């Protein structure tokens, strides 16, 4: 255990692990929140107005 701690101190592994995990977790959490917000909102909007669903005809194109 102490050896592991010493190794951490020597190689900066603790800083590395903390930096990478906090950084990636933050971005991941944000991405998730965007997806959740999108899901909640898209339930309230008709399919015809979600144009990135490119399988659907773009009926509002003319207007």
């Amino acid at each position, binding site marked *: 255990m102490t050896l592991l701690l010493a190794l951490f101190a020597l*190689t*900066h*592994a603790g*800083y*590395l692990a*903390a*930096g*990478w995990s*906090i*950084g*990636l977790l*933050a*971005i991941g959490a*944000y*991405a998730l929140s*965007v*997806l959740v*917000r*999108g*899901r909640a*909102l*898209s*339930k*309230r*909007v*008709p*399919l*015809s*107005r*979600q*144009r*990135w*669903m*490119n399988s659907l005809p*773009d*009926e*509002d194109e003319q*207007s």
Partner: protein
Amino acid sequence: MTTPTEVENPRSEPAAAADFFAVNSIADASVSTGSATTKVLGWLTLAGLVVLLVFAFIISPEDSRETADGAIIGQFDAVRLLYLHVPAAVFAYVAFALTGLGSIIYLWKRSRWWDHVAHSSAEIGVVFCGVTLLTGVIWGRPVWNTWWEWGDVRIVTTLLLFLIFVGYLAFRSVPSEPRRQARNASVLAIIGALNIPVVNRSVEWWENRTLHQQSTLEELKIEDATLLTLMIGFAVFGLMFLWLLIHRFRVAWLAEEVEQHGLKQALRRRREEAQREAMVS
């Protein structure tokens, strides 16, 4: 950009109101902001992230070199944090620049499309900027032996930039008249973006010393693997930024759709009210 570019100024089509109500088939609406393009983008990002991790932790060497008098100096393993720190920083700046650009175009063309781009980009920029600051602080401890260095230009500038755009998002989160909000937010964003060079200059003059690598690439004693890892980092963050931007843009667009839908219903209700009253009298 991909699909959403087709959507031009969603506000300027009140004429489509009638058939919108006729359809009104909300029950079978889609339940995500994803599309084929973003799925590919998303998987590419994740795969790239795995590659980046492999390169950052295994393939790239630690940073150390021998000076003339035989001492071994360098950042050693801490350099591996830079493969996250530097790309996040670069794309935070890209995001804020895009916010500034979007705001200028919004004020010029008054198309809500660009307002959504500006807003979305600012939000992602704040997240990336936060990650930059966090990893910077964690990196500074082993390498500079200090969490924070006020004499350093970039770190101070980045913190200020972070705060400026936190303020921008705070302004946008207060509900108010939508067009006035979009207009004033654009002004705030442009001022914020213009502030970057001013803050940078003034902090640099403030203390004429800096701990920061004048140019990170130069200092890193460019070994092929190191450079390659950094490039992979840029690519991954580029993909990530694009993925986030598209999804966040669609959220903004959906939010406006909901608002427009509410508006059309309110308009219909109000007209019915008017007709009812006319009938009564």
